[in-house]
């Protein structure tokens, strides 16, 4: 080994280069901070408006801090009762939990059939399920409306859940198919030789290995259902069964009945659950996004 010859090293040049490299870092950090502040301004505006009375909202600077915190009580009361938010929260949670939850289980079953059992024509059957994601949502609306009316599923919670199950299936099937294909099959074969049924292999060998991606996928689909407006507008018209976002849309649409600060309070309240969920389970959400990019 030759010793490092330090005499040829221009230390000043190295230091200069390092400094030059460090300067843009400060600049980028500055840009990122300014941009982040601008990015958050609408949310800041949302939060301060929630604490303002109607007159205060109308007169002061829109970004001014509220004079007192008291008006929020009136705003929350108004927003809560006018949108029947308790019902909305319950319905949206129900649709999200059951729709996305049952869909996850069904998707895992399908992915098991597509990856762990050998049969001919797998691609065809996979494409048949995956075809559920290639059409724009608008192509489902009219037929669903007619079918639901004929079958008496219109304005029912079960009808909403059934549809949300269906729409939440295809994408997780794609992801779980890729994921399950990567789990070694030795254990399956051993269990099969021992006489285990396929369902038992699914339940006790494959499923426990899939909780990670399934949690991430569930969060993505739950958020989608919670945030959906279109299908709630088409398949429900009664306040008892409509989702939270539908209630918010109706509140905003009725000009006279509500003031901006009340509408914004309703907006914040309706969004809090998924936002809190995001901050608490950030890692899982980011995991889900990684699956989406695949």
């Amino acid at each position, binding site marked *: 080994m030759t010793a490092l010859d330090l005499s040829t090293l221009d230390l000043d040049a190295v230091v200069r280069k390092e400094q030059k490299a460090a300067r843009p870092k400060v600049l*980028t*950090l500055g840009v*990122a901070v300014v*941009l*982040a502040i601008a*990015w*958050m*301004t*609408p949310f800041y*505006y949302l939060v301060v*408006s929630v604490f303002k009375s109607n007159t205060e909202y109308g007169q002061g*600077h829109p*970004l001014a801090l509220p004079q007192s915190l008291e008006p929020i009580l009136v705003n929350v009361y108004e927003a809560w009762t006018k949108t029947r938010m308790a019902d909305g929260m319950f319905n949206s949670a129900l649709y999200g939990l059951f729709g996305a939850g049952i*869909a996850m289980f*069904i998707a895992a*079953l*399908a992915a098991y*059939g*597509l990856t762990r*059992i050998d*049969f*001919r024509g797998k691609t065809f*059957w996979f494409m*048949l*399920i995956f*075809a559920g994601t290639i*059409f*724009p949502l*608008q*192509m*489902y*609306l*009219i*037929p669903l*409306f*007619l079918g639901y009316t004929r079958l008496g599923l219109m304005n029912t919670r079960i009808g909403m859940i059934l549809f949300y*199950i*269906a729409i939440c*299936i*295809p994408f997780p099937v794609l992801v779980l198919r890729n994921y399950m294909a990567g789990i070694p099959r030795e254990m399956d074969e051993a269990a099969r030789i021992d006489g285990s049924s*396929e369902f038992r292999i*699914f339940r006790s060998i494959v499923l426990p290995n899939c909780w990670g991606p399934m949690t991430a996928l569930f969060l993505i689909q739950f*958020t989608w259902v*919670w*945030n*959906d*407006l*279109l299908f709630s507008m088409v398949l429900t018209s009664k306040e008892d069964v409509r989702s939270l*976002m539908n209630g*918010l*849309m109706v509140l905003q649409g009725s000009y006279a009945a509500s003031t901006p600060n009340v*509408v*914004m309070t309703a907006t914040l309240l*309706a969004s809090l659950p998924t*936002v809190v969920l*995001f901050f608490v389970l950030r890692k899982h959400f980011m995991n889900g*996004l*990684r699956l*989406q*990019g695949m």
Partner: protein
Amino acid sequence: MATDTAETMLPAGIPSIDTMVAREKRHARKRFWTALAFMSPALFFVGVFLLLPVAFNIYASFTGWQKFSGLDRMVGLANYQRLFSNPNFETATSNTILWVVASFFLPAMLGLGLALLVKGLKGEETFKSVYFLPRMFSATAIGVLWYYVYAGEGIFNTALRSVGLGDYARNWLYEASYATPAMIFTHLWQQVGLTMVLLLLGLNALPTDPLEAAKVDGASRWQVFRHIVLPLLAPTIMVVVTVSVLAGFTSFDLVWVMGRDYPNRSTLTLAVNQYWESFRAGYWAYGAAIAVILGIIALSISWVLGWLQQRLDRR
């Protein structure tokens, strides 16, 4: 037992070829039915609630169905012909084209910009969360919020005035030539966080060797980006573009909430027009035809982008 020449040579106890083939066929059939049983719930839900409706929607678009009758009367292409003589359809189409073009280029470009900005920065995770946060809100909530942001005395105009651009302050959602761009701007604010995260994942998965090699060879940062990062990132960019375009031009919630009094609004899109014609006006067959048009656009976009992706993969 078998009496064929070949099989007579098999020692006793080994089944004949025929029985083995038959058994394998029986097993294969059994495996197929087992797999089908596992797939059946998914096939049921997707078939009944998604694929059947698509087929029915296509059928309905060729009928004279409106209000409560006409579903059994075939009218051929009449609904499609009517589209092209309808002024609302014209507005909706030109706006939809604007949405397609904007969501083709902008979310991926801006997302890439943000990704490069925050990558390796101090507090990268915090910045990521900040830019991603709008994505956790529903399009409905974002639409309601920005309806007030864009109002005459809203914070958008306030911001313009405070930086001396007060002359440009206007009632954004109520001026025909600005309303759709304003909605697209809001849509971008919501979506770019997602494209940024997806592109960051792509950037972090890039092989480091070619980057190091280029730096050693004295390539400038721009050269490294243009000739190494961009080509390697191309597959991720394609995914992001596809997701963005398909989400962009069929977006309904935001446009519906921010626009209110449809259909006579400059911001009408095909998705909103489809809803309005069917569920408000009762022209079901006509609405079904618009849905088919949207389907054709979506399938062509996925097909073209899929084809491009394949060419990239081969390169």
